[in-house]
């Protein structure tokens, strides 16, 4: 099980975000993507998911390009973007239930409630999400991580808006996923200590500051 | 001559049809030429700015 990135290039507008990006990520590995704002961290994550199209290069999962194996790949992928996918008109529990069901798994109400309690939302399960704070909404989205069977986690700034308790909890969850043969790719300024496994880092800053894009398509 | 232009009484219609077509086509070409001119001026200005910046940095 591995994620292979070959010679990836992304251009947005007239700016080349990155090019010639290659790496291999296997189980028990965590990759941190660093870079200043606007260097293409989110674009890279979205390209790895298949939400965005690369201008050049390819992303392989199980030695097959992700375009060709949509279903298998998406079953093994957990993606958390900037937005939490939380509906204000639904309760925390309903949101979690719908989001996990969309990802293809159904859980009993006890399991869902337990996940919400574990992430520190005890007492807010039935509250309308409109009443939840930004950090609490993020927790609802992250509660999905406690339940999912996905192998590959792609998390865009997962620690944003979380307080100390939730940060600690999330660090533990990520560490134990890596320990259990999982793979994690994330963008963050937060250290993630691992008890087992390996941390890789990519910095997108160097590939920036190119005045001109190459001439050939 | 005037007989030719009157076109048996249909002159107004015929010449206005020709006129409309011609005006629209000329307008299209004119706007293309103007757009290109403005664009080239912009690119030149940008390039000059870039060159100056590079000199200042050096």
């Amino acid at each position: 099980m591995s994620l292979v990135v070959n010679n990836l290039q992304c251009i947005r507008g007239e700016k080349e975000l990155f090019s010639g990006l290659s790496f291999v990520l296997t189980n028990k590995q965590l990759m941190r993507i660093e870079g200043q704002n606007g260097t293409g961290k989110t674009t890279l994550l979205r390209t790895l998911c298949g939400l965005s199209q690369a201008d050049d290069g390819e992303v392989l999962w199980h030695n097959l390009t992700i375009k060709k194996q949509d279903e298998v790949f998406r079953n093994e992928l957990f993606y958390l973007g900037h937005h939490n996918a939380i509906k204000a008109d639904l309760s925390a529990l309903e949101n979690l239930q719908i989001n996990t069901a969309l990802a293809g798994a159904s859980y009993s109400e006890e399991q869902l409630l337990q996940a919400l309690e574990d992430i520190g939302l005890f007492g807010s399960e039935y509250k309308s999400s409109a009443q939840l704070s930004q950090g609490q909404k993020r927790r609802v989205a992250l509660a999905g991580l406690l339940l999912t069977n996905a192998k590959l986690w792609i998390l865009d700034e997962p620690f944003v808006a979380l307080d100390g308790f939730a940060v600690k909890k999330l660090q533990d969850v990520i560490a134990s996923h890596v320990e259990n043969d999982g793979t994690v790719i994330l963008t963050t300024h937060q250290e993630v200590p691992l008890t087992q496994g390996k941390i890789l880092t990519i910095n997108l800053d160097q590939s920036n500051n190119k005045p001109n894009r190459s001439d050939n398509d | 001559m005037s007989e030719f232009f009157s076109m048996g009484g249909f002159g107004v219609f015929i010449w206005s049809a020709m006129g409309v077509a011609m005006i629209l086509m000329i307008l299209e070409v004119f706007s293309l030429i103007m757009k290109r001119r403005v664009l080239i001026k912009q690119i030149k200005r940008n390039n000059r700015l870039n060159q100056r910046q590079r000199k200042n940095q050096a």
Partner: protein
Amino acid sequence: MKINWFKYSAPMSFYPLAGKLIPLFWIAAIVCIAGGLYWGFFKTADVLNDQKQYYRIIYVHVASAWMAMWLYAVMVFWAMLGLIFNTRLSYMLASATAITGTVMTVIALATGAIWGKTSWGTYWDWDPKLTSFLILLFVYIGYIALQSAIDDKRRSDKASALLALVGLALVPIIYYAVNCPDPTECASLHQESSLKRVESNILIGMLVTTLGFWMYSFATTLMRARIIILERERSTTWVSKLAEITNSERKH
């Protein structure tokens, strides 16, 4: 001679090639339009006597109407090529074609209205042909509006290309609907091909003018494509090395 088509699918190679072709298309356009109209006005006196003089509108009307429809097909062709091969030049050509197509549709509608005043006594009639062209105009305008509403060029190219394809799929249905508002009568209504009834003398003028309009469309489309290329590639080195960019401003 083997031509490397992939080479010309890159904007950098296409730009100078188009620059060389544009004057040729202009010459062809002017010669054909002038020739066609000359024929139409001076060589058809035997067919078009005083009561039928208004018929001369048809040279411009038919030429622009055919081009309006043909350019839509051309636009869809480039859009489809873009969606299949993801070549940027195809998208650029599709959007360059759209505006000339719109101009042709407007000319066809305007001259059609004037034609209508002379032959039916009213500028506008909800006749199927005029209505279809009005809808064609709406479709062109929708395409252009969508394209200009999206700032991100990649998205704007793909989204408008998809819209052009959807339009192509629906145009026959819309055309059928405006032609046969009553489906039971439509089966019996059999329109004779209008081309066959046209005198060959007039047909020559019509065809030559149409050819001229076609050449005109080539010229304006290429001009617009060059502008789009310059706009999008303005920060590349090849654009900054172009003769028109490097030469100094003219001194007065």
